[in-house]
């Protein structure tokens, strides 16, 4: 039928991993016990999860990745990408609004800051309801990937354009 060509690349196909199981295995982020972290002032994790600095170039990759960060599913970022979501605030200039520790907290588990938020926790592995088998006990990002994204977001000062 003629409609075949009308099908658009959709968010789900691209970003929410309605995708093949083989691919998901690669993106479930390991079952190793989570690295313990300390929350300061109720909304900040000042110390790197891995003790190592993140790589902003990689961070940018994870942030726009359709099965890892999913950040652009919900946020506009200063990157050259079509279809950026708008259910979260723009991350342009985010480094001028938050400290590294606050950004790390928001990625690790934003519900600590706002329990009603729509944003997923990216470094949390349990306490979820009816998680699909492939993702049980796994975090959405590895600790190092979180650090990479933190490092990338810290480069987003004011009105940066690519």
């Amino acid at each position, binding site marked *: *039928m003629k*409609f*075949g060509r*009308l*099908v*658009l*690349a*959709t*968010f*789900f*196909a*691209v*970003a*929410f*991993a*309605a995708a093949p199981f083989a691919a998901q295995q690669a993106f479930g982020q390991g079952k190793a016990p989570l690295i313990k972290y300390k929350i300061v002032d109720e909304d900040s994790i000042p110390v790197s999860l891995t003790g190592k600095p993140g790589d902003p170039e990689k961070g940018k990759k994870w942030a726009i990745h359709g099965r890892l960060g999913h950040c*652009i*599913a*919900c946020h*506009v970022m200063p990157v050259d990408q*079509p*279809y*950026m*979501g*708008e*259910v979260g605030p*723009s991350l342009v200039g985010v480094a001028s609004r938050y400290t590294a520790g606050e950004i790390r907290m928001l990625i690790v588990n934003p*519900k600590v800051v706002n329990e009603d938020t*729509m944003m*997923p*926790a990216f470094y949390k592995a349990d306490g*979820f*309801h*009816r*998680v*699909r*088998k*492939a*993702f049980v006990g*796994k975090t*959405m990002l590895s600790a190092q990937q979180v650090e990479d994204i933190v490092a990338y977001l810290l480069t987003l000062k004011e009105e940066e354009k690519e």
Partner: protein
Amino acid sequence: MLRKSIAAAALVALAVGAGSGVSAEDKPVGPWERKENHVKAPKDSPLDYLVSGYWFRTPKTRALQDDDFENPAFLWVEQGIEEWSKVDGKAGKSCASCHETAEKGMKGVSARYPVYSAKNKKMMAVTHQVNYCRENYMKAKKWKWESGKMLGMTAYIGLQSRGMPVNVSIDGPVRPFFEAGKDFYHERRGQFDLACVHCHQANFGQYIRADFLSQGHSNGFPTYRLKWQKLGSLHRRFRGCNNNIRAIPYKRGSPEYTNLELYLAWRGQGLKVESPSVRQ
């Protein structure tokens, strides 16, 4: 004001499916935002107004739905028409044996379903009812929920309520089922830890990646989805919305999804039935 010309720009933007991430302030007015496309929300509704998923779609998609000869769902409707008077099962009956014409017998059915069946002590969606009739009155085999025949029949039945306002009962024995559906709608699930309410109540009219979020109403089902290249049931849509947030979906026709269907129908109480609709 500028509104009219801006609205025209919005149509163009939608037509090309652009989700360029414009900020809320400079976003053009879309058809879903126009008063004349709004329907009054029922009493106690969490929404300020109701607007059909139809108005969130591109002019092209809407045009497909507007013309029954273009609407691909009608391939299935034709199958439904055929099955309506086809004798099947040991009782030697067809739907027509008991209901005469669908035009008369099925008018308004899809607008008021799901309903509570005292006999079965459960909520019945139209699909359950069709199979109930087949098994008990026709002595025929059940149809699979997502089979072509079932979709065709429910689309044909839905067609008889086209333009009628959704009007489900949520009182008396139905209440507990309604409450269960409401709880489901608000319960976070999956690794993404999201509930229906996050996407369809708090964020309709926003892009989530390339998808433009509607209020998530059920008034168009079964719906021909361009992405599926097929007519699909409401419960298939539920499974999709669950799967995408990495949550274990329920079975089509399960009590969980039937309760959710009831609650969703109430959220859209007053919207016109559009079955079979076309969506992206």
